[in-house]
């Protein structure tokens, strides 16, 4: 009955997400989930190693982990085509994050407003619904024409990719806001603007955070397309360029870097979510 052992219900419930699977008493702090995750990664690495070691696939298409590692250290120390690895990663992240930041700043208000006011929605929807399914490669030329070949057009492309998922989720989130929350605010004196900022916005935050995760990853998947035109740096360009020269070892380095940075960025959003939206799913 030592205090240190005593995990309280509230803490455990939020950890497990579903209260129905009630917390076991005196449960050990070892997380089997962590182990499973490590297991998955390890399995993939081993499979990769075995497949390449046995020569089951052509190494030019699927290089061995060792070759990829070698390429990585080589690029790490010598850079790639005149720029250091950090510069490649840095420019890409800069493009990605400024586009994403812009999308957050523009799409959340527009999406919430659209959900809030059917007239605004009616005005914006045709534009957004139209461009939303368009492959970036199809309209990139127009962006280049409008914004030139420097970073502006690349950022615009990534912005457009990130914009749509956030906008759509915001509109849908507003439609799900508890009507009593809104009514209650009005009866205690909130005006329309206040209802929007003090009720709609926080009510929608859990859904918005989920959409940010989707938006960031969608923007990331557009990185190669964005860096296809007039780029000399960027991890997307690196992959593209390496693949032109059939350097799949370098392509893999790029892919792994994108995957890992993607996971890290996603983690950051999840952490922000847990910190700022602790009430998600609570009533």
């Amino acid at each position, binding site marked *: 009955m030592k205090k240190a052992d005593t995990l309280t219900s509230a803490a455990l419930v939020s950890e497990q997400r579903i209260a129905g699977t009630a917390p076991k008493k005196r449960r050990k702090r070892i997380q089997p989930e962590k182990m499973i995750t490590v297991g998955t990664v390890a399995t993939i690495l081993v499979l990769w190693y075995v497949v390449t070691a046995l020569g089951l696939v052509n190494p030019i298409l699927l290089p061995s982990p060792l070759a990829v590692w070698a390429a990585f250290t080589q690029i790490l120390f010598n850079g790639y085509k005149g720029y250091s690895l950090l510069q490649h990663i840095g420019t890409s992240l800069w493009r990605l994050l400024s586009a994403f930041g812009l999308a957050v700043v523009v799409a959340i208000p527009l999406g919430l407003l659209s959900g809030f006011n059917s007239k605004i929605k009616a005005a914006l929807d045709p534009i957004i619904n139209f461009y939303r399914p368009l492959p970036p490669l199809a309209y990139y030329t127009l962006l280049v024409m409008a914004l030139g070949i420097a970073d502006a057009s690349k950022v615009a492309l990534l912005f457009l990719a990130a914009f749509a998922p956030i906008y759509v989720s915001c509109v849908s989130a507003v439609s799900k806001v508890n009507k009593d929350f809104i009514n209650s605010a009005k009866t*205690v004196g909130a005006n329309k603007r206040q209802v929007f900022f003090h009720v709609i916005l926080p009510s929608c935050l859990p859904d918005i955070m989920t959409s940010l995760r989707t938006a960031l990853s969608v923007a990331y998947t557009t990185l190669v397309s964005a860096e296809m035109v007039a780029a000399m740096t960027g991890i997307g360009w690196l992959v593209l360029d390496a693949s032109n020269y059939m350097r799949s070892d370098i392509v893999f380095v790029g892919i792994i870097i994108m995957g890992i940075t993607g996971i890290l960025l996603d983690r950051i959003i999840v952490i922000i979510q847990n910190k700022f*939206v602790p009430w998600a799913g609570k009533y």
Partner: protein
Amino acid sequence: MQRTYEGSNGKTVVKLEDVELVFNSEIGTVTALAQVNLDIQEGEFICVMGPSGCGKSTLLNIISGFMQPTEGQALMDGKPIEGPDWHRGVVFQTPPLYPWLTIRDNVDFGLRMRNIPEKERKAITEEYLEIVGLKDFADRKPYELSGGMKQRASLAKVLVNEPSMILMDEPFGALDALTRDKMQALIRRIWMKNQSTVFFITHDVDEALSLATKVIVMSSRPGRIVKVLDTDFTYDMDGANSESARYSKQYMTMRESILNVINQKDELAV
């Protein structure tokens, strides 16, 4: 039974004219209210009773401005009620507290929206938190509260505004007897002090009689007002002789007559 109320000055605040409300859904319509005519005078304390599902909450929704009648009209000070505003504070049947705010911030919410100066706000908020007994829970989130505590919090959230009209939908349903008595005393005191108008839905005939200046009894499907009774026990309840008032002959007769009206109209099985 008729008498002049100290609280009421005879000025009509809310007027319902031939109000009808029909809900439509895939499988057919429900007439929640039909031919409802009602004058609410300034300073009145109206208690509404009636069987489950008879349209009490719907009536409250119309007066508060959440719904518009499908026929007839609802007027406040002679003008159609277009939507909710803070002059008509509403305590809901299920308390809509914001999970992203602490109890204190929930209670404070209306004052903040109305740009009351920080200092004044703080004083009022703390006062009401104290009154409803949630001082210790002021920094917690709504989902950390029990059912009755939520009800009290949402009561405080409305009362801080001191609205001229207060609409309440079974506000004390989840409270124990003592807390309930205290809350009744609170609402009576506020009503007297602010000369506010109260529209109060309850299932408890004793609660209705001990608070109301007018008891309205409704029948179900379609919801209609079948009986309006004027009472004045509330003035006695306030004083020392509350117990004697509660068991007076007059009280018992009126209690009986209300229950009879409700029970006759109900066609529940069992």
